[in-house]
């Protein structure tokens, strides 16, 4: 009981979080020196997908806009990098700002019609976006290499680092991921982040309270697309090859599925989702080529019934239960009382423990600054 008491203290929780973060970071830095290059390559893919999923999480998890077309932004980021590096001969780091600006602008462009489309219709339009992307990439074959794709020289590590190519790419991915997480966290905990969540919960009420609906929604779309674009750039670097077949509708659906399984409305959920996305096929493809799809489809449906907050939500709830120990919620245990995105939105009352406080949706993890 004493441990629980102490763990409930916000200051302790803060230190705990920092401790866990440092530990994870240490493991992440140590991993590429321990595992074989193939594994390191897989870890890189985890980081790449985690960034894209995180981007979709901002849009869908925090702002409540559905996108079945994030693979399209991913593809555009990847192709921007590939074309600039291969056809124009730019150094690889220079393509990042260009790809980010392009995907941001495109996301903004899609976000404007998205203002008039809610729910199902937005899903339809973004789905169509994902479906038309590969044929368009094939059509402009002069630039994109058509269905043959483009082969890109992988970025080589500078001499002084002493890293192998796969390790270097992994660290580039890790840096990008950390920056992405920090930015997303700050965004979500800011005024804009609260506006995003307010819109998700009730657009009309948010508007009445003075939230600029159009601005927040389009900007969220743009940010989210930019994340997918960054993931695309990393994809190009890491895989060294792009072709339209890499960016079919399957990619968009995988990103959404991983987000839901990992945890909507969570910053760490996307990482868990990405781990699933990369390693589930690894495990289950021994059984059958189709096994990962069956697992993902079933998990997706199951998630909506049983754990709408995804794995991250599940973990948070268990942690909350442990802290509460059946007792009453102490005031100030902000992190525990955080309402989950989909728990709030899907109104699943069954399965939610009575003692778990349904607190503010402000996502003020650290408390108000």
């Amino acid at each position, binding site marked *: 009981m004493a441990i629980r008491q102490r763990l409930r203290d916000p200051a302790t929780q803060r230190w705990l979080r920092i401790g866990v973060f440092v530990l994870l970071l240490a493991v992440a830095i140590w991993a590429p020196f321990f595992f074989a290059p193939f594994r390191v390559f897989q870890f890189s893919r985890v980081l790449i997908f985690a960034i894209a999923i995180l981007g979709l999480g901002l849009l869908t998890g925090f702002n409540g806009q559905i996108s079945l077309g994030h693979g399209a932004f991913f593809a555009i980021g990847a192709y921007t990098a590939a074309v600039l590096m291969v056809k124009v001969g730019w150094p690889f780091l220079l393509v990042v700002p260009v790809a980010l600006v392009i995907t941001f602008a495109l996301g903004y462009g899609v976000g404007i*019609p998205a203002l008039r489309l809610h729910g199902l219709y937005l899903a339809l339009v973004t789905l169509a976006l994902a479906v038309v992307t590969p044929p*368009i990439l094939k059509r402009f074959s002069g630039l994109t290499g058509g269905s043959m794709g483009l082969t890109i020289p992988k970025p080589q590590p500078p001499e002084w680092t002493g890293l192998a190519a796969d390790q270097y790419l992994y660290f580039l991915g890790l840096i990008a991921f950390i920056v992405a997480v920090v930015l997303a966290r700050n965004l979500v905990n800011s005024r804009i982040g609260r506006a995003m969540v307010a819109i998700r919960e009730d657009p009309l009420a948010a508007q009445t309270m003075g939230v600029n609906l159009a601005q927040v929604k389009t900007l969220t779309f743009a940010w989210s697309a930019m994340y997918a674009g960054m993931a695309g750039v990393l994809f190009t670097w890491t895989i060294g090859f792009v072709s339209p077949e890499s960016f079919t509708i399957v990619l968009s659906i995988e990103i959404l599925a991983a987000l839901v399984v990992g945890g909507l409305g969570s910053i760490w959920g996307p990482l868990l989702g990405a781990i699933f996305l990369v390693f589930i096929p690894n495990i289950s493809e021994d059984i059958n080529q*189709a096994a990962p799809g*069956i697992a993902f489809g079933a*998990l997706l449906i199951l*998630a909506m019934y049983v754990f709408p907050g995804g794995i991250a939500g599940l973990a948070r709830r268990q942690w909350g239960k442990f802290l509460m120990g059946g007792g009453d919620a102490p005031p100030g245990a902000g992190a525990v009382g955080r309402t989950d995105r989909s728990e709030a*939105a899907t109104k699943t009352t069954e399965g939610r423990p009575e003692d778990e406080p349904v607190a503010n949706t402000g996502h003020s993890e650290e408390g108000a600054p």
Partner: protein
Amino acid sequence: MELFFQQLINGLATGAIYASLAVALVLIYRSTDIVNFAQGEMAMFSAYIAWALTQAGWGFWPAVIVTLIVSFIGGLAVERVVIRPVEGQNELTIVIVTIGLFIFFNALAGWIWTFQVRGFPSPFPQQNVDLGPVSAGIPSLGIVAVVAAVVGLLFLLFQRTKLGLTMRAAAENPESSRLVGIRVGWMLALGWGLAATVGAISGILVAPILFLSPNMMAGVLIFAFAAATLGGFDSAGGAVIGGLIVGVSESLAGTYIGFIGADLKIVIPMAIIVGVLLVKPEGLFGRPSVERV
């Protein structure tokens, strides 16, 4: 000119296929307010069942009839087991569940029948008939006839039978229907069963053209979405007309607009979806939705 009529008839035939899948979407949307993203994959799965039966030595028509029955029961079961628990919840949840179904059916078909592309027997002879100045392929005419028959039967069911009336009532006003003793839940499930059956027909019609593979319906689904959007998601008649318009414009644009050609045809449904949703979101024949605060 002959090319024009040829393309027109081809367009009407593919349009009829889109229309049938769009009608399946509308059947579900009208009764449960759900856009079923898995509709195409369910249709694909049905086509596989028909194929498997013919492979097992069944005749084509018995295989089709059994497939339709199995699809009906399957659609019913999907509604009861998978959709029921999330009915009435927010759109995000429902979209995700139907996407889950999409992935599941796609992978299940791949598991059972592998991802190999297979031929599918066509029920129609591959011949042309002369219609005055132009000739038309019998398969094209057959497809149009089949879809017309399906739509006609659905019309009779909904407008002329007690069951149809009850189903419409359950979709229109579940609360009052329940009060007068209609088992609303079962009526919605029936809607899903019917939709799966109609979808199965479109799957069987499309399989000889596109060849059978688990990913066969993904493109068709987009065209069907365009058809349903154009006609209005709550209008079956609108879906049919929308399907025909989409099919014809796809065929003509692919032939006459050099930039689009055969590769970029998929851009047409996209343009239709976006255009309609921005200009007239309720579609040509749909009812505008009114949001009450």
